Every structure is written in structure tokens, then in C-alpha cells.
């Protein structure tokens, strides 16, 4: 991530009322946290080893706070699955309580399964997609209150 981009994120956050901002690109995750009475502080870290035996990767759902709770968006373009298999019950249903790190759905692309996990504790307010459909990167999948 270039310094220029980091600066742009800081500026964007400073001009908003956000208390937290997280962005991932090219294996970098940038997390900006606003402490009470201070300007946003950049905290940047390289992501850990991507390898796992099952060719699975975990993505924390891109989260942004809005009036109606946390939005869960697709981390990449692919096919969304709400359960581990067509016969199995879904990972979550509307009204269910979830903890940070719980699997919400899977995005399959090119035979690779990517888990989409809850960024924080909450209650699944709405599920906005059907299992098996194509979703664009950044498309809204669920809302967590």
C-alpha cells in the first residue's frame, strides 16, 4: 500500500465521523482507529501466511457502520453460498445472534472457497442474497445489527 493511499484514507476518515476504518489491498490491511479526542492513528500490518490445507481463506467482512447496523459485503466476485452444502442448514438465519469470527457465508470463485466471517458480535438483521447466486465484489450480502 502506498503512502499516498494511506494518506488518502486518513484524510477520508478525518473528514467523517467514523471511529474505525479497515481496508485490505494486495495482502496489506490498514486499520485506522479514532481514540477519544485524537485524530485517526494508522496501524498497518502485513497479512500472515495465506496457506492452509483446504484452500480456504478467511475474510473478515468489510464492515462499515451505518444507521441500520453493520453491512456485510462480498470480498470478491463469485458465487455466494449460505450453507456448507446444498442439503445442510444455512450458517445463519435472520434474527440469529453471531459472534465475531463466525462464518456467515461462503464465496466460491474458481474452485476456491472463501469464508466470510462476522467482523463483530451482533444479530443478523437481514440476509439480502439467495444461496448460489453470483455476487459482485463489494455487493451487500447481509446486515448485522
Amino acid at each position: 500500500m502506498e503512502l499516498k493511499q494511506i494518506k488518502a484514507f486518513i484524510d477520508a476518515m478525518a473528514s467523517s465521523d467514523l471511529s474505525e476504518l479497515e481496508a485490505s489491498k494486495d495482502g496489506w490491511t490498514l486499520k485506522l482507529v479514532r481514540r477519544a479526542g485524537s485524530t485517526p492513528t494508522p496501524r498497518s500490518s502485513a497479512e500472515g501466511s495465506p496457506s492452509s490445507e483446504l484452500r480456504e481463506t478467511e475474510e473478515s467482512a468489510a464492515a462499515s457502520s451505518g444507521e441500520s447496523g453493520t453491512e456485510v459485503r462480498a470480498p470478491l466476485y463469485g458465487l455466494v453460498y449460505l450453507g456448507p452444502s446444498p442439503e445442510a442448514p444455512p450458517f445463519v438465519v435472520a434474527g440469529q445472534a453471531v459472534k465475531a469470527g463466525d462464518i456467515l457465508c461462503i464465496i466460491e470463485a474458481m474452485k476456491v472457497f472463501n469464508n466470510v466471517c462476522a467482523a463483530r458480535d451482533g444479530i443478523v438483521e437481514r440476509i439480502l442474497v439467495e444461496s448460489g447466486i453470483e455476487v459482485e465484489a463489494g455487493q451487500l450480502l447481509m446486515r448485522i445489527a
Partner: protein
Amino acid sequence: MFDSVLIANRGEIALRIQRACRGLGLKTIVVHSEADRDASYVRHADQAICIGPAPASDSYLNQAALIMAAEVTGAEAIHPGYGFLSENADFAARVAQAGLVFIGPSAACIRVMGDKVAAKRAMRAAGVPCVPGPDAALPDDPSQIHYLARQIGYPVIVKAAGGGGGRGMRVVEQESALLGALAVTREEARRSFGNAEVYIEKFLGHPRHVEIQVLADGFGHALWLGSRDCSLQRRHQKVLEEAPAPGIPDRLLAEVGARCVDACRQIGYLGLGTFEFLVEDDAFYFIEMNTRLQVEHPVTEMTTGIDIVQQQIRVARGERLTVSQADIGCRGHAFECRINAEDTERFMPSPGVITRWELPGGYGVRVDSHASSGYRVSPYYDSMIAKLIVHGDTRDDALARLRIALDEMQVEGIATNLPLHRRLVRDAAFAAGCVDIHHLEQRLQEGSGA
């Protein structure tokens, strides 16, 4: 003798087969899923027919739909390409039963080679060198199993008879772990391949992956078309290939090549095939035979000067091979990079729309690809979007050309593994040649450059 070919595949290989058919003056019928409707090779086909929705199980793997498409369009032959149904013996049999030509070997040959234990037995019978270990499935009696493993010597590898392509295997370092590993592999094999048979072999610590391309006609003539080295792999997926395999004595290669040709004659093989070997300390060990055209076939075309897809179609049409083994030479050196739509930092797939597509060119550079600027890389299929192939007078010459070509190639809109390739071609050990099959993953783990 057929004059029309139905291409039962997609992407770059559908285009490659279409070009070969055109060169031979054959009519091409392309089948496609709903997701591939707008592909360039679909537009260029003499006839195109949609066979189902995007998921491969509903389209490219739908045998009934493919055969019906052939009947409706009047296609006389089916080319399966690679992947999908290319090594499915039942499909080959169904095509033949429908009175069509399957461009490949007989269903019986595919079936023997698909069973890794049966394949090993057939290869031993033909004098092809195999990995030490019995060419029979393991018995149930634990004491017999322990005896067999001790005869081979640890470490051993437990493999599923129905596996292949790196799936269904487990390395066992010592006797205490053998029975446990066996039970797990058996269960996996039963679930994944519908065949719980497993066998054991000596585990080789630092082998290279070397393969031999063969071509056989229906009149008992068979040729071997040189070697390829595909040692650069990640999770058993080939990343970069070359021909010939560097550093292997000519006499040794010719000896193994001749054995492969004998094996083809003995099993009545027809068409293109590849004998895959592990090579350690100048010894060849057969691992499996691929009974189809392979992704990396262009490096063999560049070094032999033979359009092997055209040759494959000609022998399927019932023509005799017109070249003899003495005519086959190896000129210069060739490399192929598989360009995949994936983020190589995290190895995440990256489907989406290509917004910039600049290809390399010039003397000795070839790109096989169905993609273009504006092309939408589908999340439904394999991530390979192009093959960059270069040829040079020597290995160093070809490698220098490859470095320039990789730098010239620019793709935007999606992530690709171009950065990984650019680092690999500058890796000192790879530049020197003869790295083993663990080299790429070791480099990735070290995170040092490549």
C-alpha cells in the same frame, strides 16, 4: 474420416483446438455454457450451441447434452480438450456408442490409466521404470502391510488407486504412523473417487517432475516427442514448464522414451499422451499417464516444430503418422508460464473484468489466450487466462526472452500471478536449472523474492 469437430471445452484450449481444426480444413462446432456466450472462439466457430447454465456440472460435464449437441449439429467427432470429460472412460465409450469419433485413446485405455495400480502394472509389463513398491492394492492384514512397507523402506507414500494429479496421497515417515495414514487415505479415497483401494510406494525426497510426450496412430506406429520439466508447482498445480528437461543425459532420455513408445504399442494406445515421471539422481520413476492433450503442450510444439494438436486430430481421423522417430529433433529451448487470475500475495482467485490487456510479442514469443480487454473472467471455472510461451536457441536465450515478455505483459482490472512469474524467472536456482518439485513452495514459504 470426419470433417467436423465438436469442441467440448472452453477458454484457451477451445481456441487452440479450433485453430488446429481450421488448419486442417475441418468444420468447428463449439459448445458453450451461458457464461461463455460472448467468448471470441464462440463467435468464430462455424456453429455454436449453448449446452446449459454456467456451472460446469450443468454444461461442460453434462454428457447427454454434449452428445445431443453433436447429433443436432451433425458433428462427426468430439474433442474433449483437457480437464472436464477428457479422461472420463464412460464418456469416451458413450461417444463411440453414438457413432461419433472420440478424439483420444479408447475407453479401455483411459480406464486402465485412470486406475493408478492397473497403470503401474501395465507400465511394469512394458518395461517402463516405476517407483519401488508393489503394483497391487494393499492387503487388509496389518502384518502383511508392515512387511511390504519394510521391504520398500521408509519414508513411504500411501496413494489412492483412483487418485492422480496430486490428490489422495499421504507420506508416512515411520512404521507407527502407517496404519493410521492408511485408514484415513482409504476413507478419503472411498469418498472422493468411489474406490477405497490404496497402494504404497517409496517416497522420493527431492525429485523433479519430468514428462514424456507420446503420439500414436492406429497402425501400430508411436513416437516420443521429447521431454518437459514441470517441477515448478504449487499444491501440485504446475506453474511454469519447459522443454526439454534440462540436465538429463540424452541417452537416458532416449532409453525411457523408447520404453514409453513400447508401452503405447502394447496397450494399443491412440493419439496424444503423456508419461509423467519423478526423476531423482538420474533415475526415472513412472507416476501416471495422462491420456489427453496437456496444458503445457506448446513447449513441445516449439522445440519439435510439430503442431501436435493437428497431429492428434489427424491420427483420430485414421491417418498414418508420416514422420519417423529419426525425424524428431529438439531445437532450442522453450518455456511456458501459466497466467492465472489470482492474487499471488494471498493466493486468492480474482475473477472480474479485464480493463487493460497488453500482450508481449516479437521473435520467439507466443501467447495462447481467449481473453482480451473487456473480457469478464468467470468465477465458475479454472483461473488460467493465458499461456505465455517463449522459444530461444538455448535455455539462457529463452529465459532472457521470457523475462522481457513477462515485463511487457500488462493486465489490469483483475489480479494475476504475473508478479510471481517475474520473480521466478529471476530466481538464481531456477535460472541454473534442475530445481525439484518442492522448490517453488519453499521459496514461497521463505517469502524471499519468489
